[in-house]
């Protein structure tokens, strides 16, 4: 759209035609107050706070609904306007309970701020206030009508934003209330409830303390927390989240998760897990002391030194006696890139084995292989918000990757993106789709073949092949198509689909996986036959300095098969629960020395000879890579006495094995760092300082426990990880493209299908989720749902 020129408060401004005045002002640093306006949702013009004076208009006008126009002359802060806003606030405060001292929103309340600004605090309200009891709509959503200023943001968030429509407005006038979709009389406990996805976006959008969160309410005051911006651990989207932490006697406790920093790849969004399911960190069953199994079979708490000694000695002995090939290593989907990288390097160079794998939730190996030799063909999560067209094959982002689903819905709603969905299930996103192709069960392979040119496969993919043809032609007509692929497509099928996509000009791809660093785990080479960046083992020069065994190692399944045969001398598991996930018979590990680093006594941990209590993603620094290849900074928020980061533990074990530490971790020359003292609350600061020094060509002095010490090497060696340090450190996401080079393509055809989707619901999150009280409550809440009738689908026509 062409730009128009206009004047605001005497300043000459320009903005694209059609921009609403309130946005144009904001872009130019002029703040116009608003309660009901929220970018991206439908206009309300209900609060009347944004009134401004526009020349030649008889009345004050609402900036939120007025598009800028050529030559417009606007005043945003005159005595007349201030009076109008003041009066509106006075009117609001009439019925508003002035319980700010105990209100969750106190200190971060838009109404409070406005009252302060316009001096409307002095009240002449002498009438009785309307009173209503607070309502608990779900374990995580509470509603306090008297505090509600009826801005209707929550309703739009839920309806337009989430496509859930669990909130409505009922009654009218001063009796109006926000009402949830399960009325009291239809609920077993005679109380009103929400039947919804429990994302908490309504709470997020609420400008006051009317909607409060079950996890946070009445816990603390905003100014008593530290706010740490980091990345959610629960799914492959890697949403930016801000954790509110508070000091406790044994560390610092996370009391809140929210999205106050809206700069992330998730934009406005955070789902229920990101918002509430940080509480696993505070779970009482957490292990906080190293445990070593005694000859009598009991697990006994020991000191860290004893534990590391024991593990180091034992691993060294087994390596030296039975060879590296007898040792298996299983990495994690939820540790940082630095930890994953270090783990595989440790396995390959210290343990001397390629027997390393992780729980794969999508086939990134085939993905990388299929895209080999191409550049700029992968999409960022940010692209899902802006792409003019998206093809979603398989997957169900609403459940698996809610941030992706949010972006897609927003794109369709606000940018008129065209969505094409092919799925064997009637996934919810079909409601946003321009075209929905209902595939036969297991029809993905046939669909990929059909796309790849095998016309005969069409009838296997869908019943109605005409629809299929129309679908394919529509896609082919799209330029700059974003092809989002679910984990259903693997190996050859994935390759066929990508090959088809590569014929479309400007098409980009993304493969959806399940955890915070599933992509990173694969990128970092937690794979038996590929080095970091999908680099082939044989004949590579990149990792020449590594002295890696040349032969491919055992994959996840083979490792356990080896154990079964008695060929696995040791198994080192970092942040993973393969025993439960792959249904491993515990007896098969009876002759294996098992070391597990975890937070909890999982099915795998209970079999271990040594259990090392680990910090989780919210308790460490580093980086993670989401499903799309977007790299982000993870910052330490919580802290728990008695646990250590996986990074530190790997280093300590390597040290105890007598490894050359300088080779393992290229920490700074002439370091005076004292091993063992850099963790704790100050480490993050030290890291930043060092990086800043490096950026300014000064000499860094890093500790080997500092994950950033190895980031240098990742940057230097891993194809595609040529990231910008300062981007990372300033908390910005960056899209990376670690596709293997086309020469020396890996042959992965011989590997069996190792992809095992997590199959998480909205209220589960792998093994970790079991330790979240809030997720358990939500699952229970879900089981109380009334059977029918309340969440039917809104027809598109209305």
């Amino acid at each position: 759209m062409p730009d128009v020129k206009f004047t605001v408060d005497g300043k000459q401004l320009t903005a694209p035609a059609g921009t609403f005045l309130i946005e144009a002002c904001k872009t130019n640093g002029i703040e116009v107050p608003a309660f009901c306006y929220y970018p991206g949702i439908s206009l309300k013009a209900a609060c009347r706070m944004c009134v401004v004076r526009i020349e030649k208009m008889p009345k004050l006008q609402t900036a939120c609904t007025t598009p800028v126009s050529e030559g417009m002359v606007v005043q945003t802060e005159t005595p007349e306007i201030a009076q109008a806003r003041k009066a509106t606030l006075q009117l609001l405060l009439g019925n508003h309970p002035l319980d700010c001292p105990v209100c969750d929103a106190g200190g971060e309340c838009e109404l409070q701020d406005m009252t302060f600004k316009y001096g409307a605090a002095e009240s002449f309200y002498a009438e009785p206030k309307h009173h209503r009891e607070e309502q608990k709509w779900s374990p995580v959503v509470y509603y306090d009508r008297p505090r509600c200023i009826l801005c209707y943001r929550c309703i739009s968030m839920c309806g337009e934003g989430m496509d859930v429509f669990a909130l409505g407005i009922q009654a009218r006038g001063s009796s109006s209330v926000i009402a949830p979709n399960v009325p009291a009389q239809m609920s077993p406990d005679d109380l009103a409830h929400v039947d919804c996805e429990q994302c908490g976006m309504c709470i997020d959008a609420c400008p006051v303390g009317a909607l409060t969160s079950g996890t946070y309410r009445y816990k603390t005051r905003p100014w008593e927390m530290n706010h740490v911006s980091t990345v959610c651990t629960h799914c492959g989207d890697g949403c930016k989240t801000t954790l509110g932490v508070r000091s406790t006697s044994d560390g610092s406790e996370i009391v809140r998760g929210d999205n106050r920093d809206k700069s992330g790849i998730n934009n406005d969004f955070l789902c229920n897990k990101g918002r509430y399911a940080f509480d696993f960190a505070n779970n009482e069953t957490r292990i906080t002391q190293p445990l070593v199994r005694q000859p009598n079979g009991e697990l006994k708490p020991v000191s860290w030194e004893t534990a590391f000694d024991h593990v180091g000695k034992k691993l060294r002995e087994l390596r030296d006696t039975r060879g590296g090939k007898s040792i298996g290593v299983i990495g994690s989907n939820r540790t940082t890139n630095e930890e994953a990288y270090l783990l595989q390097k440790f396995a390959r160079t210290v343990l001397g084995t390629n027997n390393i794998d992780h729980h794969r939730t999508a086939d990134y190996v085939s993905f990388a292989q299929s895209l080999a030799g191409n550049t700029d063909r992968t999409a960022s999560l940010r692209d899902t918000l802006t792409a003019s067209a998206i093809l979603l094959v398989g997957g169900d982002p609403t459940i698996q990757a809610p941030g992706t689903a949010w972006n897609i819905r927003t794109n369709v709603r606000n940018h008129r993106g065209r969505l094409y969905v092919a799925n064997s299930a009637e996934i919810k996103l079909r409601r946003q789709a321009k075209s929905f192709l209902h595939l036969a069960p297991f029809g993905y392979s046939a669909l990929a073949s059909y796309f790849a040119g095998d016309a005969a496969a069409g009838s296997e993919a869908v019943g109605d092949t005409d629809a299929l043809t129309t679908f394919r032609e529509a896609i082919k007509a799209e330029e700059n198509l974003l092809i989002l692929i679910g984990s259903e497509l693997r190996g050859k099928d994935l390759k066929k689909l990508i090959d088809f996509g590569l014929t479309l000009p400007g098409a980009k791809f993304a493969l959806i996986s399940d955890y915070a660093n599933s992509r990173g785990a694969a990128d970092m080479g937690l794979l038996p036959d590929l080095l970091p960046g999908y680099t082939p083992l044989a004949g590579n020069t990149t990792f020449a300095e590594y002295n890696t065994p040349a032969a491919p190692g055992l994959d996840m399944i083979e490792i356990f098969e080896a154990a079964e045969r008695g060929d696995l001398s040791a198994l080192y598991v970092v942040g993973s629960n393969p025993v439960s996930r792959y249904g491993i018979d515990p007896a098969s590990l009876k002759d294996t020395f098992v070391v597990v680093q975890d937070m909890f006594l999982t099915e795998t941990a209970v079999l271990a000879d040594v259990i090392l209590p680990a910090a989780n993603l919210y308790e460490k620094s580093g980086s993670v890579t989401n499903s799309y290849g977007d790299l982000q900074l993870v910052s330490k928020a919580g802290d728990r006495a008695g646990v250590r980061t996986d990074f530190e533990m790997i280093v300590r074990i390597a040290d105890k094995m007598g490894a050359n530490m300088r080779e393992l971790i290229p920490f700074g020359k002439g370091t005076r760092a004292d091993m063992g003292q850099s963790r704790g609350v100050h480490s993050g600061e030290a890291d930043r300082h060092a990086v800043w020094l490096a950026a300014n060509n000064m000499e860094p002095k890093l500790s080997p426990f500092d994950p950033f010490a190895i980031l240098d090497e990742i940057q230097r060696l891993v194809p595609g990880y040529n990231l910008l340090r300062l981007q990372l450190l300033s908390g910005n996401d960056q899209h990376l493209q670690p596709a293997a080079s086309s020469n020396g393509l890996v042959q992965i055809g011989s590997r069996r299908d190792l992809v095992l989707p997590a199959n998480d619901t909205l209220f589960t999150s792998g093994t970790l989720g079991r330790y979240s009280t809030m997720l358990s409550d939500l699952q229970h809440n879900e089981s109380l749902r009334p059977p029918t009738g309340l969440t039917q689908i809104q027809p598109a026509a209305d």
Partner: protein
Amino acid sequence: MPTLVSHPDEVKVVSRRFGQGAADIDKYVELDGYKAVQEAIAKGPEWIINEMKASGLRGRGGAGFPTGMKWSFVPKQSEKPKYVLVNGDESEPGTCKDHVLFLHDPHSVIEGTMIAGLAIGSKLGFIYLRGEYRYLLKIVEKAVADAYAKGFLGKNIFGTGVDFDVITQTGAGAYEVGEESALMESLEGKRGVPRIKPPFPAVVGLYGGPTVINNAETIANAPHILLMGGEAYAKLGSERNGGTRLFGISGHVERPGVYELPMGYSLRKAIYDVAGGIKDGKKLKAIVPGGSSCPVMLPEEIDVGLDFDQMGKAGTMLGSGGIVVLDETVSIVEFALRTIAFYQHESCGWCIPCREGTDWIKKTLTRVYNGGGNKKDVDNVQYLAENMLGRTFCPLGDAAAMPTIAFVKKFRKEFEDYIAGNKAGTPIITVEQLVGAH
């Protein structure tokens, strides 16, 4: 059943067929019914709009917008279908003129709807009646059915190849739904909350299509205007206020009723001659001239012509033509309270100033009324009302603020005296009643 009244000063145009059984289609046809629409088909949209413009007809719903001009704003070309919407929500307190119109001459509304449709190129009209008018809805429904049966509605009307349909619709109790965009929301099966303007209905209205919305009386005038000619109609009224208007005179007058008077007719004469003067020989205290939202007038202000411009100059409004007359026994405090209680009850609640303002003023006046007032209350009420005025999402907020401001300004002393314990008038509401109702 409403009784019909008449007075020699009346000039009967829309009420011409009242009392003659014109709800019957044959009778209506006999009394020149459905002639205008056939002429309109023959002469085309431009002619219709020109006649309407020439007639000087201004909207009878309250705002007085020139009807011909409104029709001409509808874009000729439109991707979406265009609609005609007849506003029969009549809910402004003091107003009952559309009531008589639907009762006595429903076909004139149908014919008017068709004419508006022809003027703007629409094939579908809606006649929306407030939910309380169920018996009138039946009358209109029957009239529509009869018109279909005669081939006056539906496909190929009057054998001219033109199609036009009419759908009747009922509300379910909400004053705010009389506001044009709220009415569209209601007709689309939603809460009667107004829409953001612009876009205006003429461009984006019902179902997103260009829509002409008019009051029932406005619409019913159209056939008469076409029959008599726009200019002749204009001449019946005053300057820039063409024709005649149905005035409902109620309250303390001897002969309340709906009278059709020429625009510009003297307010004094309307009260003292037409309606027979103040009931039981009492003294006039105040007049609410055009439905409850119009600022109150004092006895000394009634030498004014009843048209949009003259009433505007007099600091009030012609509004919906419902003239409510108050005699000396009325307590203005009570009357103001009853008025704001209505707006508090009917505020849709969408925007802050209207929702909270009406609620607060009502609460304050209730306290004052019950003897718990203090001096500052009068100022506070005025402050609140003045700060609602012009700041609300739709004109309902103004409709509540304007009369409040006028009551407080023109009867300030009565409020102050009341607070001091000297109650003028004879209050009749008991505390319990007001609390119970709202």
